[in-house]
């Protein structure tokens, strides 16, 4: 029941996109966001959609998986669409019933904003689906390194992120196990009103917190036992290197931004 979360989950296959340098992929994701916002008209959606389909192909990802990432967003999507549809001022009235009216401008804005949301989420999932969490935080740390000069804790932040990411599946598994153990004792997590349901969470949350603290303590001890003392002078097992494929990917992205700008 808790295992169906796809957003942010790594999809373990080999592909062109998987083997790109994580730093490049992070920067490309930022560039992709730029591309999404460069185009003002609806036409700009075409090159971006083509790019996403192409990128999914190059990453060996089933498109279905990418679309699944949008599912948790459906409420926001509908909300955005409806709000823009009815409340955008415009002159060309398409439909009018009582005081509610749909204008041409409203329809375009609604489509544009909902599509942008979809693009942003798929773009971000493309990054997380094709990059292992460790590589991702490595890349981030490297990208943030210049900021360390002005006292920004780049290494600590990256370490915190990789630990947090590392423990998401562990905690999910633990929650699943405790939930089952309490269900075996007759606990009911599914029925009842809001207050009853919140109360029913206590037998799940107390053991989960206790074990999260225990795990944190154990981990801190294990890190100290292996002489962890922060980022100072720490070397890497895998040194990140930008290669030919990374340049190709950058070129493709530049083309996309240009296309979006020209069309929009």
């Amino acid at each position, binding site marked *: 029941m808790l295992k169906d979360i796809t957003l942010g989950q790594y999809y373990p296959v080999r592909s062109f996109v998987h083997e790109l340098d994580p730093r490049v992929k992070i920067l490309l994701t930022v560039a992709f966001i730029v591309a999404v916002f460069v185009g003002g008209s609806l036409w700009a959606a075409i090159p971006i959609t083509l790019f996403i389909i192409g990128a999914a192909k190059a990453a060996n990802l089933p498109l279905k998986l990418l679309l699944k990432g949008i599912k948790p967003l459906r409420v926001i999507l509908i909300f955005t669409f409806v709000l823009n549809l009815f409340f955008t001022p415009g002159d060309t009235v398409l439909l009018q019933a009582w005081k509610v009216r749909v204008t041409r401008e409203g329809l375009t804005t609604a489509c544009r904003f909902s599509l942008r949301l979809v693009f942003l989420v798929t773009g971000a999932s493309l990054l997380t689906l094709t990059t292992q969490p460790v590589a991702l935080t490595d890349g981030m740390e490297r990208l943030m390194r210049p900021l360390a000069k002005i006292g920004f804790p780049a290494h600590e932040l990256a370490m915190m992120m990789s630990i947090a990411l590392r423990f998401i599946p562990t905690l999910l598994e633990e929650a699943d196990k405790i939930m089952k153990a309490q*269900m075996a*004792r007759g606990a009911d997590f599914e029925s009842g009103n809001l207050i009853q349901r919140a109360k029913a969470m206590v037998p799940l949350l*107390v053991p989960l917190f206790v074990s999260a603290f225990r795990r944190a303590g154990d981990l801190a001890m294990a890190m100290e036992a292996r002489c962890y003392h922060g980022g100072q002078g720490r070397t890497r097992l895998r040194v990140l290197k930008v290669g030919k494929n990374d340049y190709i990917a950058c070129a493709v992205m530049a083309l996309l931004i240009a296309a979006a700008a020209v069309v929009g």
Partner: protein
Amino acid sequence: MPIKIEHMYHTYQPGTPFKSDALEDIDFTIEDGDLLALIGHTGSGKSTLAQHLNGLLTPTAGRVLVDGQDINRKGADRKALRQRVGLLFQYAEYQLFEETVYKDIAFGPRNQGLTGDALDARVRSAFMKVHLPADALEKSPFELSGGQMRRVALAGVVAMEPEVLVLDEPIAGLDPKGRDELTDIIHELHRGGVTIVLISHNMDDVARIATRVAVLEKGRLAMLGTPREIFSRGDELEAMGLDVPQTVQLCRRLRAGGMDLPDCLTAEELCDAICAAKGGTRRGNA
């Protein structure tokens, strides 16, 4: 209340790259009064099988029949089932959450709808069965030792008075004394009329208390029989990476050294057999 498992399969996360077949074509029956030991290497599917017995997991294919009824049929009463088939998870001490041991043990029976004196009687009787010091009842479970917490968790399941009790590695990670005490508690529960399914890696305990043994290997049921039958196939067990009881080990070594011995399971038997082989009789109590 026999539990019949019919050609059961279970696949985790089907249709994804993380897909794994945990159980394949499991087919056997847990009879009333069994103390069935479920043994197998890590990852052989023991825990997965255990969670099918009270409907926490649903088979990918095949059926689980409790008292002749498919537990996964539409409209089946899961709550009633979980009361009849109790399950204690691995490292069960981590599921405790209440302020006092008493309240934690009462969680299960309270979910069954018991209140007042009936509830109190259930809690006290379950507490008695796990041999904890009397003053522990009003303590916080988090003040107790790991082994004691484990027993509180066991009491929490026993308090629901299940007919079948499934125990997933109840003695893992305990010290030798805690292990022996818990094994004795399980043995007592079984003599008290509860059917028990015990997942264990400790073959000496299995040989001592089990009435039947099921061996899982890579998700398949590799052997099923009495401890005597199973442990006489020591070579096959060792090929699966499993131990045999110390008595069986000693017996096999003596035999390899040229002594003529029959298969022995308990220390008593082995002792008698050695004396007989040496042409004498046992004196006194061994």
